[in-house]
């Protein structure tokens, strides 16, 4: 079972497979560095779209031989993004990754009905795996980036994506905590009804072989002493593998708080697409981007 992001990389390496990454408007130093590391480790190759002179000069500044990458000449970010999407659509790449293009333009190209990467009728969402020193293993969170106020259908989709990721990590029976402000369902909290419905669905086997409970707070989900202190009985018992959040509003500061104040790291992906989509903010570190590339290769 994978319990850290480095173990996740090892799992990708053990598979012995190499995946092709198409990088949209690849003029970003951290992206190029992360890719060169993935190429060096042998689990990825990269096709970059953008202005070759710029890409080569970023490579040179970073001390990287640009010949390890394929570069396709595009003179603007829209064309470069569309081309990267096309490479994946047509089977010339397995994963798409964002370079310096803005998130809006990148997602727009991916969500394009005719030329994009969406699975028809699917829900676009973000699934992230977090490693933080204060927790004994990885946990998967959703959704800190895409769906502001998920309805039941969206929460169910988010949960399925998270379960798929947990399976890829070798977690056979993931423990899913439905996160709220308290363990008591209440009409004050709009997530309560959805959570109760999800528990019913789990009982009917709609999520497969998983453990699910909620609503519960972060302590009950992640602190092994908490259920004793609170006197609340739950099979999650402070050992959650997956945290489902009621809103982007709560998930986003949760994840950022962990990154900034608790020395956390995240690797995440957009789900609901034909092939894995790497989406990271431009300010992400090289290491985070590297983990994302590995995760995308694991999820292909």
């Amino acid at each position, binding site marked *: 079972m994978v319990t850290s992001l480095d173990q996740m990389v090892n799992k990708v390496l053990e598979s012995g497979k190499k995946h092709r990454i198409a990088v949209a408007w690849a003029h970003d130093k951290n992206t190029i560095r992360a890719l060169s590391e993935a190429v060096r480790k042998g689990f990825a190759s990269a096709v970059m779209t953008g202005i070759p002179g710029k890409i080569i000069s970023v490579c040179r500044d970073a001390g990287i031989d640009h010949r390890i990458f394929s570069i396709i000449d595009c003179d603007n970010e829209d064309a470069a993004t569309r081309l990267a999407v096309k490479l994946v659509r047509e089977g010339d790449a397995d994963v798409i990754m964002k370079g310096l293009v803005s998130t809006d333009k990148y997602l727009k190209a991916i969500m394009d009905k005719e030329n994009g990467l969406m699975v028809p009728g699917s829900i676009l969402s973000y699934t992230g795996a977090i490693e933080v020193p204060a927790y004994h293993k990885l946990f998967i969170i959703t959704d800190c980036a895409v769906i502001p106020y998920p309805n039941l259908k969206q929460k169910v989709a988010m949960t399925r994506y998270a379960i798929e990721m947990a399976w890829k990590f070798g977690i056979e029976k993931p423990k899913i905590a439905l996160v709220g402000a308290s363990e008591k369902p209440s009409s004050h909290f709009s997530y309560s009804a959805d959570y109760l419905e999800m528990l019913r669905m789990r009982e009917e086997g709609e999520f497969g072989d998983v453990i699910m409970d909620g609503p519960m707070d972060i302590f009950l989900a992640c602190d092994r002493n*908490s259920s004793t202190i609170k006197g609340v009985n739950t099979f999650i018992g402070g050992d959650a593998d997956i945290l489902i959040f009621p809103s982007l509003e709560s998930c986003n*500061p949760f994840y950022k708080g962990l990154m900034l104040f608790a020395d956390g790291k995240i690797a995440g992906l957009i789900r609901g697409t034909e092939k894995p989509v790497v989406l990271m903010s431009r300010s992400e570190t090289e290491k985070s981007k590297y983990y994302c590339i590995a995760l995308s290769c694991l999820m292909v």
Partner: protein
Amino acid sequence: MVLKTLSDLKGIVAGGPRKKLIVAAAQDQHSLGAVIRAWQDSIVEPILVGDQENIRNICAANNYNIDGLTIINEPDTEAAVQTSVKMVSNRQGDILMKGKVGTSSLLKSVLNKEWGLRTGNLLSHFALFEVETYPKVIAVTDVAMNIAPNLQDKIAIINNSVSCLIKLGYRMPKVAVLGAVEMVNENMEATLDAALLSKMNQRDQIKNCIIDGPLAFDNAVSYESAQHKGIRSEVAGDTDLLLMPDIEVGNVLYKSLVFFAKAKVASVILGARVPIVLTSRSDSEQAKYDSILLSAAASK
């Protein structure tokens, strides 16, 4: 002045007049430990209201020397709460503290129309967090009291908090209104409120502080993140007070900082006639002690 750590609270209250601390249903080991420490440090003059025999037994078992401490024997919990609240109402107390009694029954007495502690202000929860990775203490409101505050409530919550910060020695504290994103988005009410609060502050409708929002968590607490996003703001990266959009978000953030970032916390309920210490069972004795100090400072 700005608090660097929670231990700075002691400097603010030490040497001042002892505050009368009324403890409702004081037969609670964790509360008593903190109360007696604050008493021995000459910060408070406690009046313990509750089951005298039980209180004496707990003190004996823990070797607390309580010679000279006032105990009002009231074995019935409800009656102890009423007596405590009425004493504060009759100006016999500067701070009210919850002992072994449920939060809701204490608040019910506090809000009693005849002899309660209403002032016409909204009650709100105010917490100070100390995390290693932020250069100063950060105040957070409201993570525990108001479930889904509207704009008027948010103004009241800011006013309560700013008055408290001023009593702690702050001048023009910097208030970040938290959102999942830093852009105003018409589909996210919290961002609209944030924009209104910022403008109301510019127009002096909310005084004695500098408000900016919406700010995502990373922009609020990190200059680097704010710069990456090109945000021009006096508050970004230097936040003194972080306003939560609702309790759902506040609860998750507060618990994740405590559990994952090992944050130290002191908290108080503001807006009643006196500060109320309303810590929970899971808070450490240190957190309770720091909360008493915070309340003593807030009762100036």
